[in-house]
């Protein structure tokens, strides 16, 4: 098992008190699994991803633990994490397109990066970098270019190669396809699959709000709502037989190629997610949920109702029983 997260809670400090952006989250990731993490803006998906690699000073871990390859991952201890970043856990940040500094050529940037991580066999690593660059169909003169000379898709792909250069066990890919055109999205998505298949990364968490992309690249999909996990299951199950009312509404609101307004109107989800400053008690989707009933005033547990299918919803739990 690549990574297991147990009851992890992460809060942001604010002058109105702590805001728990990730609330009591548990999941596991198998070796070779690409897990898609989807949710609306503000659902805590990026916070969860970031917490696994770098808790910035505004964030603090208020509970739970994380195991990576059977060892404790000390996410609250930034100094201990330092030696694990890039080698064991790596991140492709949101807006990776603007993550490359404009004043350094890529080759210089990469050797600086390797130096600061104490990597000694730099020539070998650079040769591997060139091989991977060629593998995805870019010319290796990209290394002698500045980041602004590359197109968005090329920058995104170079950033992914850089993050995965030391074959990390876990890659956190935060919105890597969001700012790209469809054809480039596809190239980046397939690149993630390819890197997993070749063992460059053992497992990955792909964070995005775009379920259609996840349907292409993810093995499992986890849906997050207002800081909590709502549902986790295999991609096919989430797409075809979702159980949580939120997942169902989310899937129903996606237009598909070939569907036009005069052939059937899609519906959105009325209302908006609750504020996390003073979150309501019980199920957080309650106010927008068409099936809400009395029991929803209590917090539903995130439990496995079928093998490999976890849901946090009272209605679903009752129907199963």
């Amino acid at each position, binding site marked *: 098992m690549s990574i297991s997260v147990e009851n992890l809670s992460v809060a942001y400090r604010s002058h109105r008190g702590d805001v728990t952006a990730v609330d009591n989250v548990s999941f596991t990731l198998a070796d070779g699994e690409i897990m898609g993490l989807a949710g609306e803006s503000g659902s805590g998906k990026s916070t969860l991803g970031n917490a696994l690699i770098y808790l910035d000073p505004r964030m603090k871990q208020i509970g739970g633990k994380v195991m990576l390859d059977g060892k404790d991952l000390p996410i609250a201890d930034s100094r201990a994490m330092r030696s694990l970043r890039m080698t064991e856990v790596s991140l492709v940040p949101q807006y990776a397109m603007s993550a490359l500094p404009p004043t350094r050529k890529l080759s210089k940037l990469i050797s600086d990066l390797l130096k600061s991580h104490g990597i000694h066999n730099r020539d070998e690593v650079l040769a591997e970098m060139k091989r991977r660059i060629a593998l995805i169909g870019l010319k290796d003169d990209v290394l002698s270019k500045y980041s602004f000379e590359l197109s968005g898709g090329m920058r995104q792909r170079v950033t992914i190669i850089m993050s995965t250069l030391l074959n990390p066990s876990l890659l956190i890919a935060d919105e890597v396809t969001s700012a790209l055109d469809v*054809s480039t999205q596809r190239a980046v998505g397939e690149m993630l699959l390819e890197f997993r298949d070749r063992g460059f990364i053992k497992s990955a968490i792909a964070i995005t709000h775009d379920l259609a992309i996840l349907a*292409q690249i993810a093995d499992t999909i986890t849906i997050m709502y207002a800081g909590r996990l709502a549902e986790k299951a295999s991609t096919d199950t989430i797409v075809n037989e979702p159980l949580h009312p939120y997942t169902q509404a989310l899937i129903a609101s996606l237009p*598909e190629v*070939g569907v036009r307004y005069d052939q059937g109107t*899609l519906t959105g989800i009325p209302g*908006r997610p609750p504020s996390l400053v003073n979150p309501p008690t019980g199920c957080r989707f309650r106010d927008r949920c068409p099936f809400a009933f009395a029991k929803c005033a209590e917090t539903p547990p995130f439990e496995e109702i079928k093998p490999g299918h976890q849901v946090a919803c009272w209605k679903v739990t009752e129907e199963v029983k």
Partner: protein
Amino acid sequence: MSTLKVDQVSKLFRATSRGGALTPALRKVSFELNQGEVISLIGESGSGKTTIGKVILRLVAPTSGTVTFDDKNISTYSAHGLRDYYRNVQGVFQDPFSSYNPIYRAERVFELLRGVYFHKLSDKEWREKIDAALDAVSLNPGDVLGKYPYQLSGGQQQRLLIARALLLEVKVLVADEIISMLDASTRVDVLNLLVKLKRAGLAILFVTHDLSLGNYVSDRTIILRHGAIVEMGATQKVFGNPQHDYTRMLMTAVPELHKKWKHTPLGAVAVASNGHAVATDVIEASPGGPVAPALAHITLLDELTHTEKVVKRDFRAVLGGTRKVSSKSAVAVSLEPPELHEFEPDHLVAEPE
């Protein structure tokens, strides 16, 4: 019945670096937008789709070609005429979060209009007008009026901007990627709103890179590539039976929920002893003959193979044939777009480039 007509519009941008090279953002683009019609303008980044919107809104002047609204060339408008033009044609842009000034309340976007267009209205009439516009975009006045932008969701902000355009009773709306920054759950509401407005007679130019969104709302579709139209026609025809290779490639790349991409593993890469990958270049051989001075090589990223290729472009046609191109690297575009021919009624396809 008002019509917006874009006729042979080209736009060249001159880069400030790279020796002032010229980039063709639009190459002789022509189409008509009629009342009650939604046209989706689909293309990838750099295809010129936003530039078309800006030309129509007179934010950018075309290098050549004209835009006419009700048979009047929009470039001839005086300040006063322009004010009337903006009563009829308005735009809503991609990022609602930066369309508002965060230190003022959100409804300031309405108040600014009142000063220009509606200073004769009494407070009561004005209030009724706002309520009607908000009602048209399914917003509850109590939810949005008096709020600051950060208190509104992206979908609410975007609908408020559409309401602003409706206040003016516009005939044409340029909607530039208005959905892309919204969450899936609010996206559909904005899309359905566009359909509702279209039924009420509004003409909408829906600029997007998302094919499924374009397909959902539009009557007609235009596919743009490198500033030129490669395929246009009735949406069902273009989506149902795409003819141009580029359109087909876009269709296969669209992520769909119920259909997986066909993933073919990449081949092994040969590595020379020095660690360099053995290059397999795909640069096209230039057709014989010496290169004319106004021609130059430009590098394009090929969307089909994701490789770069160097192509030659002849910009002389757009520059009027006689204008000299200053440096050797600066160039060139022919801006002759590929020719369109009729594949079937209401479905035009360009020759391969």
